[in-house]
């Protein structure tokens, strides 16, 4: 959010500069006004696009390297962005099997024999804060941690 507000300020400045350039041309007043309106319209659009882009890139910025654990040990490590063909991984545990579906950029628990099915209801893995967990079958699907796998920080008051 902070980022997009800074960019708004920058393009306001740019707008002023273009505006004063126009003023130097000896053209009719209405033409100048029309031009100014178009410049404003375009710069507003540009700011909106930039804002949207920053917003989207912020959301999808965590690395796409995903780790699958069973019983606490790493089963497979996958870069979701390099997946070309959709595939399934089947893991069997105490309560039957879990079928994990992997496609380009996406991973989810397709089906599971566990009693609660929470892992399936979780849907796709979206962020590093909520891993896909199948507690009965001890399966965890999570993004690879970039910050040494820290789960929380004590003392940092927001």
């Amino acid at each position: 959010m902070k980022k997009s507000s800074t960019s708004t300020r920058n393009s306001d400045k740019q707008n002023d500069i273009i505006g004063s350039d126009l003023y130097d041309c000896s053209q009719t007043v209405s033409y100048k006004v029309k031009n100014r309106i178009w410049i404003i319209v375009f710069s507003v659009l540009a700011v909106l696009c930039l804002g949207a882009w920053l917003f989207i890139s912020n959301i999808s910025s965590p690395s796409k390297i995903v780790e699958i654990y069973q019983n606490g040990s790493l089963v497979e490590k996958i870069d979701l962005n390099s997946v070309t063909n959709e595939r399934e991984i089947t893991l069997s545990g105490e309560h039957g099997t879990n079928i994990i579906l992997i496609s380009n950029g996406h991973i989810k628990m397709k089906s599971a024999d566990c009693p609660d099915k929470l892992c399936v209801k979780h849907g796709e893995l979206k962020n590093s804060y909520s891993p896909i967990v199948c507690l009965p079958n001890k399966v965890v699907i999570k993004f690879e941690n970039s910050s040494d796998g820290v789960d929380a920080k004590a003392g940092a008051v927001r």
Partner: protein
Amino acid sequence: MTINAYGSKSENAVKAAQNEINELDKLLSVQNKDSEIYKLNYKKSMTVSKDTHSLITRSKELYTLTDGAFDISCEPVSREWGFYSGLENKVPSKEAIENALEGVGADHIKTEDNTVTLDENTSLDLGAVAKGYASQKATEILKENGVTSALMSLGGNVRAVGTKPDGELWSVAVADPNDTSKSIGTLKISDKAVVTSGSYQRYFEENGQIYHHIIDTKTGYPANSGLKSVTVVSDDDTLADALSTALFVKGLEKSKELYSKNSLLFGAVFITDDNKIYVTDNLNDSFISTQSYEVIDK
């Protein structure tokens, strides 16, 4: 506040825990005009809820344990320093501090069956212990609801319930007091509360001098004990919260004495003004850092 809990009943459990935390905040906040503490500070004597009563009683015990370094009657002094919303931070006059100190001390607080009575010049601020109490109650609720794996973060206080879903220990970073976006090390824990008190958390500047919010009620001034932060690890959230303040006020040497007598109750990580790290020996196996640190023996 964030609560991440795992397991089939976790959704309802988290809701119940969040409700409890919100209720306790309403009850114990010194700033909220509808809170019991606010009313008690105004009326000086009243019947209070079970939670308020037990937390005040516990706070008096912790006052004794810490030789007064933890003191919930600090409100008049903190008020003079302007550490409440709506007030302006300022260095009070000597007279103002002396006056404010008149009602300070646990002996000015009397607890009977359901009532609490304060002396005329006494007011309470449970801010140094309320978050700990809230996370303790929330932990109980999560466990009662069958949650075996959860991590809570309550304004800088961290609470781990059980281990991670995969059975691994939780990693809780200790904030670097010089730059809280960094950390000085990580604690590997399960079923523990981790609470940090640091001078960096709230402070103001006047005439080039920094004044932080952790008041030493023996002097009425911000504690100047040579520490930048203290992180306490304990099974007991309320104790961890109170001790993080108390050890900060006491300083390293006096904290060592308290630790040698109570090493079964808590562990701690200290960061001194000259950026040295000290870790109690009961945390030796759980503390991981790339920086060098000294171990405090029992």
